[in-house]
């Protein structure tokens, strides 16, 4: 092999030498042959002619000899490339159109592939790899999904399992961190000392926790997350070793973590379980029923996920049998299982990006069809050149290779430009993907993406180059024979161009349907009544420092004072405090209750509802209507009997048509009773697409909250009130952090951001597809009209009306469009089915969408073919006939 490579190189390097040697060698041969004939008695000229005849085509043999040495593959490639570049330079409009179209197609694919690779394909950003799992326990029979674990249970699983290499507990809380100029509310991951070892995370600075540092009585330690370190400490490495005050104790910073997915929560800092004031209580480590934490584990190498699940299931059953008092009754036991972390991190993103990947694939196919069509049109103009080259001895294969080289050049240029597009849009794409997956930060235009773009460019170039090449091969001989411009050789290519137009129409229709369904779905979502009036309402997180507000009285005192001060401020209509607010990331808490006079068969079978603690102006502040009875008033105080307002859906479910006002419910199994005083309208808490949950509102003074939100209805622009709100909070408690200001309308709009972005992307693709396709139709029709000028001339000379010629051309265009629509229907149905998971209250076969998009396509196609068609009617019969 090395020998051959060397020969090739030598041949390449000494190309002129090889050429002259061949020349000399063959001249010698012919001279010798001539001499032979002269010796036999021929005249010198005759002898020479005989010798040349015997030798055959010198150039052909030269080329064959060059081919035989192996070098020509590279050499002709270079030649083809040079030739191709020259040809493209001569035809800048074609080159620009083709490169731009392909840049769109390849760029879109590279961009979506960067997500597919960054999120779905590449290894998890944890050293623990694909063996990482999260444990979960569910009891579907009693409507318990993904219940947390108790630390006692975790100890049992750690001791009894045979399939896991390590288990680590985790939960997340917020605390107030002091010691900086402003008090900071920090989201804190509370973890076992081995948590980062199980995940396989190495610190960026300092160290992670060591065994024993989570034991009772250990010194409180902190690890900073990368984002928090950058955001709040400016990336200062000197933070390691610093002592920070939190929960009335001194915490020492021991390290900084590397960038990681914000999973399971977007934590600012991490502490060992012993440092957490709640988890650190002795009963948390002893009470089996105190389920408050999650478990992460690593499956032993070589053990399958199924085996680990079976192992965990077995342990779960054993525990339920051993400690019946701590588990749901028989028949409704917890089913314990493990879900791979990879699945956890990517599940939500999968449907959207599957659809997007399919769509960009279609866009690329459309781009290819369009460029193939452009190439065919150009080929028709080049047929004399190609015929000439063929006559000069270029083989069919050589010409095909030339065409494929040119198309590959175009595709590579398109790919390079497309990568620029993809890189330019990367930040937007990452922000988009972040709405679906915590892995979004791993998305990058890196090696695999570049390789993907290169492969796609090459395949694209070869694919759309082969189509014209094949049809060129077929018709070249014909072109040669007829020589003229008006040959019938175009027919094969014309059929090909029509087929490409049909394909483009079909793809455009498919994309239009995709976009149309998404937009219709978005409209439906936007017109959903959320159950509240969000205009002019400012929201902000209000999390009280529990070390200061140790009991209900202190909390309410703060909250009451804050609300009173705010109500006096100009610009404030009403202010309220609640546990959470609708369409916020954190929803209300779910719990079980009991209705007086309707005892449940067991604790597990008590009805469930979402609980909301709200101050009395809550309903008027966010505009939730009162349907019956009364809302809370200033008279509902810690001293008066406790009262509740329930949502309409809860009232319907348990009291049907009767008025529940006056009925009583209990949260503590009948120890105390709470009277229902009113029924409020349903509110979509968890997103506009999700049904409103059953809700029980309780009065804040009677159930003061530690963690909640402040809601302020403004007379003017709500965000203008942010400073006032912050100052008012500080005036009540200077150490109280206030953050995450947003209006209720922003929260609502935010909840629609991902469907809106998906709809925008799909519409963009569909619009581009439509533009490309209409240009394609116009091009083909213009060409057809040009080819048939002669025929139209005859028709008009024989008395055809311009109108009938117009109809003739338009009918031809519409035949293509109809065929494309028929094919597109099939594609659209497939895409719609793929998308059904993304749609809200829209059937995948939504007739209005299909009808509207058909009309759009037909109108656009008619417009595109109208101008070429009108040119057909303006043909002057005499000129057309004479030029024939």
């Amino acid at each position, binding site marked *: 092999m090395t020998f*051959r490579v060397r020969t090739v190189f030598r041949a390449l390097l000494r190309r002129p030498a090889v050429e002259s040697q*061949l020349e000399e060698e063959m001249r*010698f041969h012919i001279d010798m042959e001539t001499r032979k004939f002269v010796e036999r008695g021929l005249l010198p000229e005759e002898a020479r002619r005989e010798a040349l005849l015997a030798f055959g085509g*010198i150039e052909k043999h030269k080329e064959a*000899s060059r081919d*035989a040495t192996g070098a020509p593959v590279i050499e002709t490639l270079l030649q083809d490339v040079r030739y191709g570049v020259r040809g493209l330079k001569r035809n800048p409009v074609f080159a620009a159109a083709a490169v731009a179209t392909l840049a769109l197609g390849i760029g879109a694919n590279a961009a979506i592939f960067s997500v597919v690779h960054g999120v779905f394909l590449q290894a998890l950003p944890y050293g623990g790899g694909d063996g990482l799992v999260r444990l979960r326990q569910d009891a579907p029979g009693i409507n318990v999904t993904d219940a947390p674990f108790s630390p006692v249970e975790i100890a049992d699983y750690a001791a009894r399992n045979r399939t896991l290499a390590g288990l680590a507990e985790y939960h997340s809380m917020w605390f107030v961190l002091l010691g900086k100029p402003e008090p900071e509310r920090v989201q804190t991951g509370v973890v076992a000392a081995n948590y980062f070892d199980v995940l396989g995370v190495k610190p960026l600075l300092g160290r992670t926790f060591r065994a024993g540092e989570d034991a009772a009585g250990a010194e409180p330690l902190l690890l900073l997350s990368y984002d928090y370190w950058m955001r709040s400490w400016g990336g200062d490495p000197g933070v390691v070793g610093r002592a920070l005050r939190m929960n009335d104790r001194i915490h020492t910073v021991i390290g900084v973590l590397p960038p990681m997915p914000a999973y399971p929560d977007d934590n600012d800092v991490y502490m060992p379980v012993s440092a957490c004031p709640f988890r650190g209580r002795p009963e948390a480590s002893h009470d089996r029923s105190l389920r408050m934490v999650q478990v992460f584990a690593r499956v032993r190498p070589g053990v399958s996920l199924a085996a680990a699940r079976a192992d965990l299931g077995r342990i779960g059953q054993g525990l339920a049998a051993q400690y019946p008092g701590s588990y749901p009754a028989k028949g409704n036991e917890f089913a314990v299982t493990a879900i791979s972390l990879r699945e956890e991190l990517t599940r939500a993103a999968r449907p959207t990006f599957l659809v997007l990947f399919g769509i960009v694939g279609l866009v690329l196919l459309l781009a290819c069809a369009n460029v193939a069509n452009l190439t065919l049109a150009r080929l028709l103009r080049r047929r004399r050149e190609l015929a000439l080259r063929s006559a000069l001895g270029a083989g069919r294969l050589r010409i095909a290779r030339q065409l494929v080289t040119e198309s590959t050049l175009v595709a590579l240029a398109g790919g390079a430009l497309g990568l620029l597009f993809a890189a330019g849009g990367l930040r937007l794409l990452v922000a988009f993907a972040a709405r679906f997956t915590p892995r979004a930060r791993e998305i990058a235009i890196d090696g695999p993406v570049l390789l993907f773009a290169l492969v796609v460019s090459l395949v694209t170039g070869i694919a759309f180059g082969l189509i014209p090449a094949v049809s060129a091969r077929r018709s070249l001989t014909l072109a040669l024979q007829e020589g003229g411009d008006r040959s019938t050789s175009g027919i094969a290519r014309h059929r090909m161009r029509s087929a490409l137009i049909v394909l483009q129409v079909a793809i455009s229709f498919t994309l239009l349907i995709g976009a149309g369904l998404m937009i219709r779905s978005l409209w439906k979502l936007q017109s959903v009544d959320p159950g509240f009036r969000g205009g002019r309402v400012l929201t902000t997180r209000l999390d009280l420092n529990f070390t200061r507000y140790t009991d209900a009285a202190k909390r309410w005192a703060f909250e009451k004072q804050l609300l009173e001060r705010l109500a006096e401020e100009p610009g404030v209509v009403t202010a309220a405090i609640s546990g959470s607010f609708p369409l916020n990331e954190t929803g209300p808490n779910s719990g079980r209750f009991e209705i007086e006079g309707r005892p449940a068969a067991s604790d597990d079978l008590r009805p469930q509802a979402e609980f909301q603690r709200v101050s009395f102006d809550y309903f008027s502040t966010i505009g939730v209507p009162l349907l019956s009875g009364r809302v809370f008033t200033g008279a509902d105080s810690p001293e008066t009997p406790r009262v509740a307002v329930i949502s309409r859906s809860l009232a319907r479910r348990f009291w049907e048509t009767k008025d529940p006002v006056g009925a009583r419910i209990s949260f503590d199994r009948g120890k105390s009773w709470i009277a229902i005083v009113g029924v409020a309208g349903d509110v979509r808490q968890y997103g506009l697409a999700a049904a409103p949950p059953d809700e029980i509102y309780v009065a804040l003074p009677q159930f003061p909250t530690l963690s909640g939100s402040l809601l302020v209805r403004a007379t003017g622009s709500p965000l203008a009130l942010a400073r006032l709100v912050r100052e008012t909070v500080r005036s009540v408690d200077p150490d109280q952090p206030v953050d995450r200001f947003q209006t209720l309308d922003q929260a609502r709009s935010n909840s629609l951001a991902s469907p809106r972005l998906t709809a925008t992307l799909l519409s963009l693709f569909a619009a581009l597809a439509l533009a490309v396709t209409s240009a394609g139709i116009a091009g083909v029709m213009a060409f057809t009209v040009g080819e048939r000028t002669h025929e139209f001339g005859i028709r008009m000379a024989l008395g055809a009306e311009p109108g009938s010629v117009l109809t003739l051309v338009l009918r031809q265009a519409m035949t293509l469009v109809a065929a494309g629509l028929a094919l597109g229907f099939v594609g659209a149905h497939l895409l719609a089915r793929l998308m059904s998971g993304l749609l809200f209250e829209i059937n995948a076969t939504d007739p209005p969408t299909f009808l509207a998009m058909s009309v759009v396509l037909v109108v656009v196609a008619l417009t595109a073919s109208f101008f070429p068609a009108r040119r057909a009617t303006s043909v002057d019969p005499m000129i057309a006939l004479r030029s024939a």
Partner: protein
Amino acid sequence: MTPRTDLLQGTLDVLILKTLRAAPMHGWGISQRIQQLSEDVLQVNQGSLYPALYRLEAKGWIRSEWGASENNRRARFYELTRGGRKQLAEEQEGWERFAQAVSRVLAAG
């Protein structure tokens, strides 16, 4: 990645190798020699001789050198390499086996 070898081309290759076994020779000489040896039965298409020579050289079975011809002109002389000698032996054996087989079949008729 050996190029497709049809009977004709393969045959020409073996004839060239055989011709060069005796002595180094230039292209025209080879064509004359083959014609002469085959008593004018085999007409070598003179032009297609050169691609074959270049192919054999690329395979390393022959090598070439510029020298002076019998009439004192610069000519390119080809000679067999060691690999070419081995190749010739193999092809000759293969050819003989093939020819014998064909004649046996024909004789059996």
